[in-house]
């Protein structure tokens, strides 16, 4: 028992370390929404300035997540951390560390699956491999240090599914309690990330089909609490209960206006999965197929959601983070079941565990290499721009800042930390004397030189110019 607990702690630490490493050295690409959906609004509310993206004009987003981020900004500013870049980096670290909470959930899911579908040999292979995959799978690490809604959304769904699976192997009070926690987590997760919503219905359907009415009632009753909180928040902030959810559904699914943000190929998600997993996709597919009877509660919902989201014309890699997580956990669980079954049959489970570890390591390496083949929406080269914005914000003589490229592809006012004019760099803006700093790639050197500017900061392909 102690050994299992030690192993769980070690795996959680491994997951957290991998995520901190990604935060510190890899700098995963940050989607513009990482700034403008939930960070900049929090900054604007707290400081009185910040860009309002279109979602915040029509009330398409709930204020709950900005309020969460904003509370942390308020706290860190109260203890003297006021540099906007430091604040943002701290928040990224916070999400990276918090996302490591997927590891204990994965362990408990593995244990529940083992109890339901495996034997009672006391082997920890299933929970251990499920947790191991959750800890080291590169795609989960890549998306962890981000202020996007998919991070808390995925985490809540994984914990919700964990409680659902545990409710399937419990009885009486314990079963109802697990169902209650599942309802809370899934409802909160679905309110945060509405397109994941259909997966919140799976546990309830399962409970009803198995005629487990009391836990189903507990699950649905608990789900009303986050829903109520969301409804009230929207009522207070947007003037209508559940306004942001209704506006989201209307905009994306009824009016189909998501296409205004780009139309993607129908097979983008499948193509991405194939490219990112590389050759590892074959053994993983075999692994899951052979153990589908055991890992279906994780794998089938993942496939269903990918197929559902593939019907939408506008696609982004991060939209399928939850299916990635559930798919990863089902692969880990399947490997654990195979190691456990072969160990029982042929003995030498320790050797098989080592082989399993080697397999997991191989998948990680192949997958990490595949992940470098980013899709068209790649913002990974933007880090120097974010740093340049923060640097310019610390200059006492700053009166206005220009940045090359579209403004929403930068870090916004929340990285500058000063309420000054901030615009796109072009011939029409550079002549205005209030803009005394400009961030530009080397290709725009001539434009800045023509306007009598000189370089004061540079990193990689980007330079900061001043008059």
């Amino acid at each position, binding site marked *: 028992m102690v050994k299992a607990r030690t192993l769980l702690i070690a795996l959680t630490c491994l997951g957290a370390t991998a995520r901190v490493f990604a935060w510190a050295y890899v700098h995963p690409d940050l989607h513009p929404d990482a700034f403008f959906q939930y960070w900049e609004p*929090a900054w*604007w*509310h*707290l*400081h*009185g*300035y*910040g*860009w*309002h*993206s*279109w979602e*915040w*004009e029509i009330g398409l987003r709930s204020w709950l997540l900005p*309020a*969460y981020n*904003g*509370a*942390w*900004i*308020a*706290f860190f500013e*109260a203890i003297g951390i006021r540099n906007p870049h430091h604040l943002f980096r701290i928040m990224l670290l916070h999400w990276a560390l918090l996302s490591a909470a997927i590891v204990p959930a994965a362990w408990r899911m593995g244990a529940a699956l083992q109890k339901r579908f495996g034997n009672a040999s006391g082997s920890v292979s299933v929970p251990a491999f499920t947790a191991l995959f959750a800890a080291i799978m590169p795609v989960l690490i890549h998306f962890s240090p981000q202020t996007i809604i998919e991070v808390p959304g995925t985490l809540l769904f994984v914990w919700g599914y964990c409680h659902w699976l545990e409710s399937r192997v419990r009885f009486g009070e314990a079963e109802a309690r697990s169902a209650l926690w599942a309802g809370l987590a899934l409802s909160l997760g679905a309110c945060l990330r509405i397109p994941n919503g259909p997966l919140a219905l799976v546990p309830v359907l399962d409970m009803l089909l198995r005629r487990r009415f009391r836990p189903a009632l507990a699950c649905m009753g608990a789900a009303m609490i986050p829903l109520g909180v969301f409804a009230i928040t929207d009522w207070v902030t947007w003037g209508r209960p559940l306004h942001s959810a209704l506006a989201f559904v209307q905009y994306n699914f009824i009016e189909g206006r998501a296409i205004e943000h780009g139309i993607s190929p129908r097979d983008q998600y499948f193509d991405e999965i194939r490219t990112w997993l590389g050759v590892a996709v074959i053994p993983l597919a075999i692994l899951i197929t052979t153990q589908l009877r055991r890992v279906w509660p994780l794998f089938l919902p993942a496939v269903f959601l990918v197929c559902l989201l593939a019907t939408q014309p506008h696609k982004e890699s991060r939209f399928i983070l939850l299916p990635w997580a559930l798919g990863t956990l089902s692969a880990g669980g399947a490997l654990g079941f195979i190691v456990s079954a072969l160990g029982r049959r042929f003995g030498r489970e320790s050797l098989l565990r080592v082989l399993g570890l080697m397999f997991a390591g191989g998948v990680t390496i192949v997958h990490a290499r595949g992940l470098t083949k980013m899709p068209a929406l790649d913002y990974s080269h933007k880090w120097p721009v974010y740093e340049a914005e923060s640097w310019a914000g610390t200059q*006492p*003589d*700053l*009166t*206005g800042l220009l940045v090359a490229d579209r*403004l929403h592809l930068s870090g916004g006012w929340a990285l500058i930390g*000063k*309420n*000054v*004019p*901030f*615009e796109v760099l072009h011939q*029409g*803006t550079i*002549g*205005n*004397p*209030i803009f005394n700093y400009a961030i530009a790639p080397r290709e725009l050197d001539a434009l800045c030189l023509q306007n009598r500017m000189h370089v004061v900061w540079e990193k990689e392909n980007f330079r900061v110019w001043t008059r």
Partner: protein
Amino acid sequence: MPQLTKVRKLSQARSLRTLGVAGAIVFVTSEARFIAAKPICETTYPVKASPPEGTATTNLAYFEYGPTLRVSSINFFARHHSGYLIDGVSNSPEQKWMTDKSDRHPWLEVHFRAAHHLAAVRIVHAGAIEPSTYTAKTYTITCLRDRKTSDVKIVIDGNKESRPLHPLVCERATGIRIDFVLRGSEAVRLYEVEAVGLW
């Protein structure tokens, strides 16, 4: 020995609970600070220059002289920042100040670094470049002074000029304030505000 382990576990649980409660209190306090925040839209510009020697009158509000600019709101969606009010440029339709649509009582204040003699206030309304309906018709200009001296006000009603110069003679002026009355229009749009006076 088992007794000792039990005591240790109990103590661990108590420490964790205390830590959790302390964390929750800190978070709730910070959340309350976030919710209660009512920041003022304000910018203090650094002093970068002073008017050329021998100038008769100058624009006291110009950003290079280091004023503090306060406004009731900014339309951040369209990025029509208040800084454009005092940038000395009034020919670009993008570079104007526009208030937020939810702001029903728009105002602006320019505070100078020191007290000066104010002679007039020039406003470049959006109607100078855009449709004339964008020109504000009703507003009050106040010359701000220190607390011992009363403010001087002029009320403009029915303005039709897109670049009006409003005489407002005022000694020891520390700044100006303009309060707008929205009549039919959804927002205030201005290209420039100049406080014409002696340095």
